[in-house]
Structures are given as C-alpha cells and as structure tokens.
C-alpha cells in the first residue's frame, strides 16, 4: 500500500536532487566566469560574440513577426471593445501591463529557450558524446569556462536585446493597429507613454537577466551532463527545453508575486 507513496517520494527526491545540481552548476558557471584569466577572457569573448550572433541576430525576424502579430491582435481588438464603453484610455495600461511587462518578456524568453536553448543543449551534448569535453579538460581548459560561461553571458545579452526589440515593435505595431481602428496616432502615443514608468524599464532589465540566465544555464547543464551515447542528445535537448520553459513560467510568476 505504501508503494505508490514511496514511488512519489523517490521521484520528488530525484527532482529535488537535480534542482540542487542545477543550482550548483549555475553557481559554478558564475564562479568560473569570474576566475577567467585575461587569455581565457579573450577566447570566451569570441565564443560569446558567436553565441549572441546565433541567439539574438538570427532571431530578429522571428521576434519582429511574433511581436507585431501579438500587438496587432491585442490592440485592434481592444480599441474596438474598449471604444464601446468609452474606455480607450485603458489601451495604454493594456499595452504596458499585458505586453511590455508580462507577455513581451515571457514570449521572448520562451522563443529563445525553444530556439537557442534546444540548440545549446544539443550542441553541448554532442560535444560530450564526441569526447570534446574530455579533450578540453585534458588540454587544461575548464569546459565550464569555454562552453558554459559564453552561453550564459550570450543568453543574457541576447534576451535583453530581443526583449527591447519586442517591446519597441509591439508599441510601434500597436500604433498602426490603433490608427487602423480610427484612433489618432498622437492620442495613442500619449496614452502609452503616460502608462510607461521607470519601474517598467527596471523590470525589463531584471526579467532579461533572470530569463537569460535560465536560458543560458539550464541547457548547458543538461548538455554537459549528458551520457556519452548518441541517444543522450535528444534526451538532453528535450529535458533542457522543458526545464527552461518551466523555469521561465515560474520566474514570471515570481516577478508578479513580488510585485
């Protein structure tokens, strides 16, 4: 009778243990980054620039598309619905609270996790399977410094840049949507700017840092802890993507909870 309870306990203990290992890995990555020598920093910077190119630059089109579609749908619907009750002033609040503060960071982080997080975990798991991680250690190179630190920093920079792009695009597309719904451009701009505060700027920076760290660390952890077997690559990619998404949603809820 106690078997199901015991199984539940084992599963929970395993998950907590993995969470602990993940936290320790994240801490080690930060510590490894701080311990980089000048020569190591030059190499890591080169890898980081490459990472930003793949994660941010190559995702610009996708972010523009998602942001403009989301903003167009929300604002055009809102102008019509709120217009009926004479509450079009609430569009600014809607734009800032729903898109800039909540959906923008969430969708940007989920997009980067799905696109680049999967690639990071698959790439590092392949490095592991092909013996490249072991070879790095044998050459006196800390794999965390060469592989994980640049992806950690690159992801934070990329999520921040894409988040700013998402918000700017959303506001600009909202302007177009409002104009099409017979709301004057200056009026729209006035309402939105009045709703934006310094808190939104700091929240954007904080969310970019937290979500970027999740997208950088979680896939690196699952990639580097893969077994040396080809079947480990899809497993690592899948676990990393799911764990990153859960982490991003939990992080988003935490931001709302702490206000």
């Amino acid at each position, binding site marked *: 009778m106690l078997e199901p309870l015991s199984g539940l306990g084992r599963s929970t203990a395993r998950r907590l243990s993995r969470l602990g290992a993940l936290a320790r890995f994240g801490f080690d990555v930060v510590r490894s980054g701080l311990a980089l020598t000048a*020569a190591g920093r*030059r190499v890591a910077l080169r890898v980081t620039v490459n990472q930003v190119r793949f994660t941010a630059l190559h995702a610009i089109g996708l972010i523009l598309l998602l942001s403009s579609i989301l903003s167009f749908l929300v604002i055009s619907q809102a102008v019509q619905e709120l217009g009926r009750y004479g509450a079009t002033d609430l569009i600014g609040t809607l734009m800032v609270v729903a898109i800039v503060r909540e959906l923008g960071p969430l969708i940007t982080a989920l997009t980067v996790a799905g696109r680049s997080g999967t690639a990071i975990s698959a790439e590092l798991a392949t490095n592991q399977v*092909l013996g490249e991680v*072991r*070879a790095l250690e044998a*050459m006196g190179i*800390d794999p965390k*410094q060469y592989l994980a630190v640049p992806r950690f920093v690159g992801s934070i920079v990329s999520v921040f840049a894409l988040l700013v792009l998402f918000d700017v695009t959303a506001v600009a597309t909202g302007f177009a949507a409002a104009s099409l719904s017979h709301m004057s451009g200056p009026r729209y701009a006035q309402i939105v700017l009045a709703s934006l505060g310094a808190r939104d700027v700091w929240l954007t920076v904080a969310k970019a840092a937290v979500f970027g760290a999740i997208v950088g660390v979680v896939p690196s952890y699952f990639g580097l802890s893969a077994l040396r077997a080809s079947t480990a690559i899809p497993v690592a990619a899948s676990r990393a993507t799911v764990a990153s998404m859960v982490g991003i949603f939990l992080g988003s809820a935490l931001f709302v909870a702490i206000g």
Partner: protein
Amino acid sequence: MVMTAPIAFEGVPLGLHEGPPLSLAIAPRQTVALLSGDAGGVGPLGGYVLGLERPPAGRVTVFGTAIADLPARERLAFRRRVGYLPAGDGLIQNLSLRDNVALPLRFGSTASPREIDGRVSVILAAVRLRDAADQRPAQVTDEERRRAAFARALAFDPTALVLERPFDGLTARVAAELLELARGGETAEGARRTVLITGSELPAIVQHRVDQVYRLARNGALQLEPA
C-alpha cells in the same frame, strides 16, 4: 641523482581483467606501448594519467604528482605539461584545424596572439597540415584529423605525451612519421619526449621505434615483449 619517472603506475588494476595490477615507471625519453586486444584493458590508462578519471585502486603519477589529487585549477594547469591525444581525436567540430591547435595556447598561455599564430603555423607545417588548416574536422580526411590531433597534443611542446590508439586506420608510413614527431627528434640521451602509447596493435615499422612494448597476456598481466 634520482630522477622522477615522467609517468608511473603503482598497483593500478587493468579493467575487468583479474591479473596482477599494473606497476610500471616509464623512464624519461622512453617510448613505451601498452597493448591489449580489447579496449577494457589498457584503454582507461590515458585518462588515469591525465587525472580525467581515478583508477579504482592504486596511484598514477606524472613527474611525481598525482594529477587527480590536485585542486581543480592546479589540475587544469598541470595537464598543460602533458600532451594528450585521445582515442577518436577529440577535435572541436565547430573550429578549424588551425583553431583547434591554437585553442590550448590561446586559453592557457601568456603568449601574444601573434606569437601563438606563429607557433601554430610552425606546428601545422611540421604535421603537414598547412593546406587543410582552415578546414573543419568534418571537411578533412581521417588522416588529416589525426595529424591535427597530434599537432594539438604538441602545442605546448610537452616533455611527456599520452597517445590513445594513435595509429588506428593510418598507413604504416604515416604512423612512423607521426611517431617521430611525437618523440620530438633524437638527442644524445635519446628522444626529446617521454611517450606512452595505449592501444590494441602497432604497425611493425612503428614497433621498431618503440623502446618497450607490453602486451596484456591471457592471465591478465602485462608482459614485456622481446625486443
């Protein structure tokens, strides 16, 4: 004056074999091959030497130091004194062969980028890889990949080298050429480097250039083959 053995094994079990554990000190400037028919026998020894794995029992030292016992930072730094060619080459797939050879120097030396580029060019010329240097591992032949892996193992000009299955799939002529590069040329006292080779077989022409060849016997013991 007592000279510390560049590489020494003390009571290290050989895989799943039930023979006596390996105790062997490799003298400076010697080239020693440890051969076994299966990977489980001598396969893990290279990893033990570099401190990448710990042996289940016994101790492995390099210049008197057990690398696996060192703190993480010192362990990484110490490994730069030992060249290592892993089985399957271990080249980084998204770097060109030139960048693969340069990577340990860029990360672990204080030389300027210009000095590193110069050193890498010299090593690439020595392993005859100048033409393929800007290709990635997937774009070149097995032989060129192995040459690049040799070049990377020699990047720091180490005094000791560990080579895992270094000549598998190579012609005897190429194997002999690469072994000479690994030994680093001859001096009055012998080769410039101490070389440990692990694998299953050696081409006959290479075997003549190896100072000692030990082979895993059926009883699980490594036996010295007659010269």
